[in-house]
């Protein structure tokens, strides 16, 4: 029996057992069992398979619970979406579970605006009374606006609304991909999100789609993209070009950057189609359509569009060739370009591009049944907004959605004020909840029953990984209880029992011991592969608007684009301290929002880094701080979404500015022309690992290799030593990090926070350079190539953690042996022996040691998330990466218990475990067959600062950059 299997069995049984323990009243004791169930052992971790609900991607997670508390989440290896890995936001979901600002029970707003806590009974009765009144006034007077739901909750809300004589139900997501669905309807006759296969493609062209960070299913796409990069590592032209006015994290991973004018992405895509057709490069499958395609794109000759797109025709033709000759390629469109008056044009053009490139049915398929197809359209939202404003809605239920913050213009907010009774089912305060009359806090998803199917064939299960810690109640249960109060007879149709039994019935479980049901619980869902349907392009000339070209803009005017924050997403996770404290991979900023300005533009406007600027658009104005960035076009400024929260959230409130306030009030665009910036003062933007250019003359920290580089194994220059080398008799732990796969997503950083009880330092300490993270993502950009055409921005992300050197400079300088070389090659750090001379940190060339300048603290109830296997360090001691020594020990224990030798893969540190690109490989360097040994001897392998002769245990594999 493998360890994972063992844990899975434990998890299934454990999940059931924990579910039995569910009760609305929080337990007071740490180990709540008087007579412990056989399968829960105090201090032993149990894994509960459930689903991450932080974004609509729906990754499967295994919640690691110790003593009935979730302490960490990891990807579910069986889940087809994420295959065992998780992104930074998924890792941070534990933070939202233990969010100190969570509602602790139902609240009713008094006349004076203050809130009064009440019992669940009273709260449900109050809701039932209001619903009864609403129902009495006619049909359609109750509305539901909520996060995307599928499966049992989708059915429950539908049935429940029917009970109150309504069908007004909107599932809202800030990033709804509506233009894509409409474009697909136009081009393919199917209003749905296609399925993308980045791993099947040989070349990817992204028009602003941040598929490595926020776009649709970033974990899945990162895995696929990493596979593509590995496969195409020897391509002299690279495998990924990013066309956007701003380089996002995804863009920084590209081999080339086409800095297209903002709003002209559609024109560029169409001119590419034109070039492909005109140059005779189109795929044979598209031959029957060539005539109408040719006439459709006739106005978009690259030569004619240069003034609009700011891309030279020669580059368009070269890109066209690259796109078509690579075999199946893949074009995707997203980001600000798809929240734009030209968004549908872009998505149409991208589909057309995929068609002429012969990608339809290969890297772009249909019939995937994406959950995103169930999202409300903008028209539906506006419709509801009108109904609210006209007083047609008596009761509005808001379930994990925050339209008051996410929608621009404030129209929704004022419409909300017209609703007589707003019920919020949120867990934490938000801008919409601020206007609620009744707050019925939902469980966190890690405490909930439920299900979520991100796409057809992938039905993910939600099961409580622990009993709720606060007096919250599952929204499903609230709905069932209220329905029964309202109309006991008709509520019979919803079935007996609580929401948990509703879910199990939905899953077809006949009894709690039903084999199929327990199997789903064990595996975290049911997975099958849905075969794509055959879909063909059709002639849509008639419905395609004639000249969808952007308006010309006066020279010197600035365009603002808003982009999804890779960490805060649309702002929903802004209160998770880790996501505030881990530096944004692009701007390196922590604990604040910013506006990105090209240095040339800043110079023209007389602005400098850290200037506080008032940003004014036709729709509104905000105040934020300048961050200089060469990855935006000089005529563009860019702001992240997700900042400037108003709600009472300790980590998010009034941090940064709400970019949405500047956008057109109709919600049509994330781009706004003619913004002006006025300097208002200075405020230091806290930036960590700010240096992204290697000073000349130094050996690069992050190294690159050209595909043509000769395949000689690197020579290791090891000077003679005075002392004999360390003997590592049994194991010598080592790591290999593939810079060619690493995308800089920072999931490893969040995983390390979770696994190793790394304290959150907070804004002030970060400003003072006292952040505590054991692993950081450094970024090095190559010196700039003059801007024109397809540019190189050659960024390399370098995860930097303790290198566990064999000749560690930290070891000899410690006067008390608090750090020493252990027999397995680790630079062990003994916290209790450390007296805090900090000499080790001074002498560490990698500067990976972290000193506790203050006593770490975890605001309650965050202390429940601490990993009991890892010591919480006190003030005055040094700490650093241990290669997750507790996991190493656990892995060795398992091997010993099973009376077998240690095998490669028995131990995976938290960072390697979660890496969506699987760029980190850990293992035993003493084992010649281990993956890490083989990778360490790769021709791309090198050690950072090798010339210092520290002999690190971490080998980095150079990033391959095109010629």
């Amino acid at each position: 029996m493998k360890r994972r299997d063992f844990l899975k069995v434990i998890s299934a049984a454990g999940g059931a057992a924990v579910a039995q323990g569910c009760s609305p009243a929080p337990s007071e004791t740490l180990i709540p069992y008087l007579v412990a169930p056989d399968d829960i052992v105090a201090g032993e971790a149990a894994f509960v398979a459930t689903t991450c609900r932080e974004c609509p991607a729906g990754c499967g997670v295994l919640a690691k619970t110790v003593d009935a508390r979730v302490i960490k989440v990891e990807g579910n290896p069986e889940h087809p979406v994420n295959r065992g890995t998780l992104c930074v936001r998924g890792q941070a979901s534990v933070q939202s579970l233990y969010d100190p600002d969570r509602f602790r029970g139902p609240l009713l707003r008094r006349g004076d605006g203050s809130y009064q806590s009440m019992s669940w009974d009273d709260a449900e009765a109050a809701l039932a009374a209001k619903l009864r009144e609403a129902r009495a006034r006619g049909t359609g007077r109750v509305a539901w606006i909520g996060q995307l739901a599928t499966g049992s909750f989708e059915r429950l809300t539908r049935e429940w609304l029917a009970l109150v004589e309504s069908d007004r139900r909107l599932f809202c997501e800030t990033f709804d991909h509506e233009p894509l669905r409409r474009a697909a309807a136009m081009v393919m006759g199917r209003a749905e999100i296609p399925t993308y296969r980045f791993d099947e493609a040989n070349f990817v062209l992204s028009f602003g789609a941040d598929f490595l960070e926020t776009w649709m299913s970033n974990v899945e796409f990162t895995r696929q993209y990493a596979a593509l990069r590995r496969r195409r590592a020897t391509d002299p032209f690279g495998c990924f070009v990013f066309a956007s006015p701003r380089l996002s994290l995804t863009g920084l991973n590209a081999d080339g950057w086409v800095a297209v004018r903002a709003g002209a992405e559609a024109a560029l895509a169409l001119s590419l189609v034109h070039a492909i057709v005109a140059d005779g490069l189109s795929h044979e499958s598209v031959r029957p359509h060539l005539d109408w395609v040719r006439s459709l794109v006739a106005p978009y000759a690259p030569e004619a569009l240069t003034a609009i797109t700011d891309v030279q025709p020669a580059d368009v033709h070269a890109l066209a060739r690259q796109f078509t000759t690579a075999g199946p390629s893949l074009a995707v469109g997203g980001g600000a370009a798809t929240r734009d008056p030209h968004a549908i044009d872009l998505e149409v053009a991208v589909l057309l591009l995929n068609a002429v490139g012969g990608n339809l049915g290969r890297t772009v398929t249909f019939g995937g049944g994406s959950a995103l197809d169930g999202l409300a359209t903008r028209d539906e939202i506006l419709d509801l907004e009108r109904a609210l404003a006209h007083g047609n809605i008596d009761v509005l239920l808001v379930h994990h959605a925050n339209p008051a913050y996410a929608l621009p213009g404030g129209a929704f907010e004022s419409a909300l004020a017209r609703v007589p009774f707003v019920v919020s089912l949120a867990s934490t305060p938000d801008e919409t909840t601020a206007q609620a009359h009744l707050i019925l806090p939902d469980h966190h998803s890690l405490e909930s029953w439920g299900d979520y199917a991100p796409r057809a064939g992938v039905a993910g299960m939600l099961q409580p990984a622990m009993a709720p810690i606060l007096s919250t109640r599952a929204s499903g249960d609230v709905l069932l209880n209220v329905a029964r109060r309202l109309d006991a007879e008709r509520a019979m149709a919803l079935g007996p029992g609580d929401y948990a039994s509703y879910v199990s019935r939905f899953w077809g479980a006949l009894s709690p011991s039903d084999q199929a049901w327990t199997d789903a619980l064990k595996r975290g869902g049911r997975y099958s592969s849905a075969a794509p349907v055959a879909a063909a392009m059709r002639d849509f000339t008639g419905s395609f608007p004639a000249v969808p070209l952007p308006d010309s803009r006066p020279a010197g005017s600035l365009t603002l684009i808003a982009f999804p924050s890779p960490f805060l997403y649309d702002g929903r996770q802004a209160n998770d301290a880790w996501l505030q404290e881990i530096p944004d991979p692009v701007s390196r900023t922590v604990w604040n929002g910013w506006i990105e300005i090209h240095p040339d533009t800043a110079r023209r406007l007389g602005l400098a880094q850290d200037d506080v600027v008032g940003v004014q658009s036709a729709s509104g104005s905000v105040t934020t701080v300048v961050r200089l960035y060469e990855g935006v076009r000089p005529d563009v400024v860019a702001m992240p979404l997700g900042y400037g929260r108003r709600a009472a959230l300790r980590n998010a409130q009034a941090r940064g500015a709400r970019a949405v306030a500047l956008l057109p009030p109709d919600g049509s665009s994330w781009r706004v022309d003619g913004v002006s910036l006025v300097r208002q003062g200075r405020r230091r933007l806290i930036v960590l690992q700010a240096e992204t250019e290697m000073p000349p003359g130094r050996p690069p920290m992050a190294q690159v290799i050209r595909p043509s580089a000769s395949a000689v194994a690197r020579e290791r220059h090891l000077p003679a030593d005075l002392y004999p080398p360390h003997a590592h008799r049994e194991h010598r732990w080592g790591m290999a990090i593939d810079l060619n796969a690493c995308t800089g997503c920072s999931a490893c950083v969040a995983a390390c926070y979770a696994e190793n009880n790394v304290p959150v330092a907070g804004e002030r300490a970060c400003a003072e350079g006292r952040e505590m993270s054991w692993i950081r993502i450094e970024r090095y950009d190559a010196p700039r190539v003059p801007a024109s055409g397809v540019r190189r921005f050659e960024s390399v992300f370098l995860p930097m953690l303790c290198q566990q050197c064999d000749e560690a400079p930290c070891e000899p300088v410690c006067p008390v042996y608090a750090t020493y070389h252990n027999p397995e090659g680790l630079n062990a750090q003994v916290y209790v022996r450390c007296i805090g001379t900090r000499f080790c940190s001074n002498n560490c060339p990698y500067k990976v040691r972290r000193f506790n300048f203050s006593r770490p603290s975890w605001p309650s109830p965050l202390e429940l998330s601490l990993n009991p296997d890892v010591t919480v360090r006190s003030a005055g001691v040094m700490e650093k990466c241990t290669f997750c020594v507790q996991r190493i020990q656990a892995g060795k224990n398992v091997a010993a218990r099973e009376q077998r030798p240690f095998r490669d893969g028995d131990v995976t540190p938290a960072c390697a475990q979660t890496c969506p690109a699987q760029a980190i490989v850990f293992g035993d360097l003493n084992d010649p067959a281990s993956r890490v040994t083989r990778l360490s001897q790769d021709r791309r392998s090198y050690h950072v600062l090798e010339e210092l002769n520290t002999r690190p245990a971490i080998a980095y594999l150079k990033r391959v950059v095109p010629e």
Partner: protein
Amino acid sequence: MPGQSLTVELHRVTDDIFRTFTWSRVGWFAYWGSVGLCGYGWSIAGLLWIQQIYSGLQVTGLNHPVMWGFYITAFVFWIGVAHSGTFVSAILYLFHARWRTSIARAAETMTIVAVMTAAIFPVLHLGRAWRFYWLIPYPNERGLWVNFSSPLIWDAFAVATYFVASVLFWYLSLVPDFAVVRDRSGGRQRAIFRRLALGWSGTAGEWRGFRRAYGILAAIVTALVVSVHSIVSWDFAAAIVPGWHSTIFAPYFVAGAILSGLAMVLTLVIPARFLLGAQDYVTVDHLENVGKLIIVMSLILTYSYVMEAIFSVRDDRPFTRSTFLFRVTGDFWPLFWTTIACVSLVPLSLFRRRVRRSLTALFCISLLINVGMWCERLMTIVTSLAHDFDPSVWGTYRPSVFEWTIVGGSISWFLFWYLLLIGHIPAVPIAETKQNLLESHRG
């Protein structure tokens, strides 16, 4: 002094020096007032230290990557100050430089107090200061031992050794003087000094033993002068940090230490000779000689700076070069140029005899050298840490109010003990002055 017999003159020496020992009413108030003020100063610093222990080193300006700052600078600075005492006493003694006598006591006392001040800082800067005794190898049932390969352990030993040797050396020279005080006073003072004088009666045998012991101790302490600051320099040189990892560090630190010590001697002795009315014994000639020594040490340091620059620029690895450039032009450029100005340029003015013999000039120069040496240590420590190998985590450093106050408090601490000691012992060696007098009469 013509017209006076040698005996009278010798007697006058005793009278004069002993007078530095008895206070006028105003003097008494001034003295105890100063002592009290200094005591108040370091008490404030002490309170801040308690606060620092309570809230952790977050109250300092230290950060990742600059883990050492004002406190370690203060340690090196005070250890440096501690060097001239022994230098003046021991080395000049061995070289028979007779002029050293007048300032020897002041310098030796300064050494002891400076070591007492310096020794606080390695403890004070610890993350867990209450565990400082783990730096001492003592047998314990946990079987824990110190790491003898750590320069910090060498440091602990070197400083402790130096302190013990300096105290012995200082005390030995005091024994005959204590006897003088004993013989001239009564009551409780007599009782105390009888103990301190260890029964000295001035027999020829005692003098012979005294000479021999003094010579041996001088030789030992001379070795220590070189070794202690070499070892302090290895705190840095044994690390791989660019700008620290250099073979020149030991001699360069020793020279720097002697320079700062000599400057501190001037800073203290020039006002003290007025306050104690010892102008006849600490003459301008003596101070001029210190000025000459300062020139020598300053030139040695300038040579070291030049060598360091050449080593840095010619290093085949870029790190040292870049650190050097950072020192010269980076965030901390004022430190570098202040150092050059105060340590290399200002002392050149001492080539002029007029400057050398002007007490005001000497005093000002000594202050400037002190400032320069402080800047040099701070620059060496901070710039190397702020910009070392990984550009992504380069940082900067700004001392906090706590660091300023505690370092300022260390000056109070130093003056407090210095005043207390020098006020209660013969500030100029009586016996040795007399001996010089005798020899010059003979000579």
